[in-house]
């Protein structure tokens, strides 16, 4: 079985982000970029499945400008066998990514598609669900545990939902999106980093895949959240009641 993992290059999780002065977006120049943490977890899961003998190959996919290749190299250094880079110069919205993934799935024929549950730059949490819908595949999102049954070709997924944990049984091929507690991603060791240099990265263009990237969504403005106001120290209960009544209007 082949596993396809979609990874995204985002602003590093630990960076203090700033909004661009023209409010069109977040400052990404000269800022450290890395693989989306949830995508790392997705890749780690794929590698674990391959190491347990249930899969033959792990293919990492990323879409965007040429520096996506860095992220793919990280994926290859972690242990992926091959990588695919879809060249796109503009930011892609989840629906477009899902359509592109559909084309790639038709070319590669994986038995499992694993993604991170959301990207930390747009927090959309849509791609996994959309691609499952487009392919007509079952989906197990927010996975915190994945167990495979090879004979029955079934994946049992524990999902972290608001009410607790939900366990689903999915027929393969399926889409799984990963949540934080699924695993702890491995580090890229030196021998693997060296091996990664010789692993192939195939490039596709948007025209080759024949997908239109016209987006129906336009980002109008990006602003910082309002700064927290300093608290006020009150001197008596009467003052508290007065403020709750007249300022906060909660009583």
């Amino acid at each position: 079985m082949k596993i396809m993992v979609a990874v995204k290059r985002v602003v590093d999780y630990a960076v203090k982000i700033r909004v661009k002065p023209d409010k069109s977006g977040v400052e990404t120049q000269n800022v450290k970029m890395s693989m989306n943490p949830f995508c790392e977890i997705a890749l780690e899961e794929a590698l674990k499945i391959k190491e347990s003998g249930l899969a033959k190959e792990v293919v990492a996919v990323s879409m965007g400008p040429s520096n996506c290749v860095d992220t793919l190299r990280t994926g290859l250094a972690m242990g992926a066998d091959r990588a695919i880079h879809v060249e796109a110069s503009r930011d892609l919205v989840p629906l477009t990514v899902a359509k592109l993934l559909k084309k790639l799935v038709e070319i590669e024929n994986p038995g499992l598609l694993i993604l991170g549950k959301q990207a930390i730059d747009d927090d959309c949490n849509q791609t996994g669900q959309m691609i499952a819908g487009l392919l007509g595949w079952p989906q197990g999102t927010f996975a915190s545990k994945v167990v495979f049954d090879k004979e029955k070709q079934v994946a049992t997924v524990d999902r972290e939902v608001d009410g607790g944990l939900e366990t689903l049984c999915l027929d393969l091929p399926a889409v799984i999106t990963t949540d934080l507690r699924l695993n702890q991603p491995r580090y890229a060791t030196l021998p693997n980093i060296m091996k990664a240099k010789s692993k192939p990265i195939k490039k596709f263009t948007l025209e080759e895949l024949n997908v239109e990237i016209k987006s129906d969504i336009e980002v109008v403005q990006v602003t910082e959240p309002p700064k927290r106001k300093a608290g006020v120290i009150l001197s008596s209960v009467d003052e508290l009641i007065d403020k709750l009544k007249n300022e906060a209007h909660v009583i």
Partner: protein
Amino acid sequence: MEKLRATSSLRRSLKSILNRQLSSVSETRYLNEKRSCQPTFNLIRDHRNLGEANPIRYRCFSSVSTVVQRNPSFSTLNPDDISYFKQLLGEKSVIQDEDRLETVNTDWMHKYKGSSKLLLQPRTTEEVAQILKYCNSRRLAVVPQGGNTGLVGGSVPVFDEVIVNLGSMNNIISFDKVSGILVCEAGCILENLISFLDNQGFIMPLDLGAKGSCQIGGNVSTNAGGLRLVRYGSLHGNVLGLEAVLANGDLLDMLGTLRKDNTGYDLKHLFIGSEGSLGIVTKVSILTPPKLSSENIAFLACRDYSSCQKLLMEAKRKLGEILSAFEFLDIQAMDLVLNHLDGVRNPLPATMHNFYVLIETTGSDESYDREKLEAFLLSSMEGGLVSDGVIAQDINQASSFWRIREGVPEALMKAGAVYKYDLSLPVEKMYDLVDDMRTRLGDLARVIGYGHLGDGNLHLNVSAAQYDDKILEQIEPYVYEWTSKHRGSISAEHGLGLMKANKIYYSKSPETVKTMGSIKKLLDPNGILNPYKVLPHSLNS
């Protein structure tokens, strides 16, 4: 605590000292035989001259820590003093509350505890000047205190000295974006300065594990080293100016912001590293390097110490200008960290290696630095210098590598009692000392070696379940003598404080120390600033 335990061995050595004296050994012969004995010898002679009935204050030959007596020339606090301070600083800045005094009287390692009855928190330089002027006139001893993170007992009182804590003087005065020169008050916490500079696109030239609590005044006063010294150099190079208050309340305004200023003697260097014994630093002007965008960090495993050394030589050559940190820890240190700290895992797979090296590079071009680092690591691996390693792929992974290295002192504290030694040694010899100590101590205690290999600085730590004189006997003075033999420093970056106040002769000649004593006498004639520390006690008499 240690002072009390020393008493019995003190008596023993006292007898031997007096016996030797009676057999009329000449002073010169003593000097040639054991340089380290000089202080006590002089002291004995002085005591006899003064006809003092009191026994010797402390030993010198035995391997136990010093026993100090309170200097009788210092006054004790009276209610008039308290009311003067309250009037000068306001009620809130004069603290006599037991609980708060308990904290400021104890050092970070809980090894030293003073009995000060008064904590003062001035908010301006003028207030500091007034405090010192008053204390000098009243002969009240003073301990300048910052973040109280020192490791040699230099930041807490020995007896009832008044604690002057600069934590309330934490304003950033100015920052010049073009030159990167930061001017701030001494009580600014290092981590806060780092955050402030981060927003401006700059970094502090020093970084240490204690950054969340230590203050820049303390860093400057102790000439703190830290993790980036190999790249940015010491504070002597980065501090462009400072403002200090002398013992008599005189203000020395040397707060220049000039890169070059060759007008007269550069007095600020006296205050950098004098551990608060020559004056209280109240403002600092420091040159900050620009924050470079590309940081890469690798965590490597080496089979033996000589590989670590060769790796350092190769790193300096092949990584050259982008190398910003080179640290090492041995397997015992790694074990300790993995066992005692939460949320820490070994970046390298299962098999434990003997030595771990952490290499950090900082540069302006991500892909160029990456290639350089990978090429260097590849050739090191092929050359057998490195047996395994990982490169951090994002900032979180990088922080986890640093957590391991910066967490060693914390893990040591959690493991029980720890004897800490901070030595500068020639790089080839560094680990020999650790092996020697292991043989000497056997099953008595665990010996851990780690440190700033890039600067030739070894942090030798001996960890045991409890403090025990038997262990201490095996360590001191062997460690100091070993270091002295190799012309190393018995205190690379931690300073002398109280712990090593009488050990300076292992690393500095008697004439040098005598000159230091003269300078101290000149700037602080009554000896009220941080007494009993830094210089040998004999110099005071």
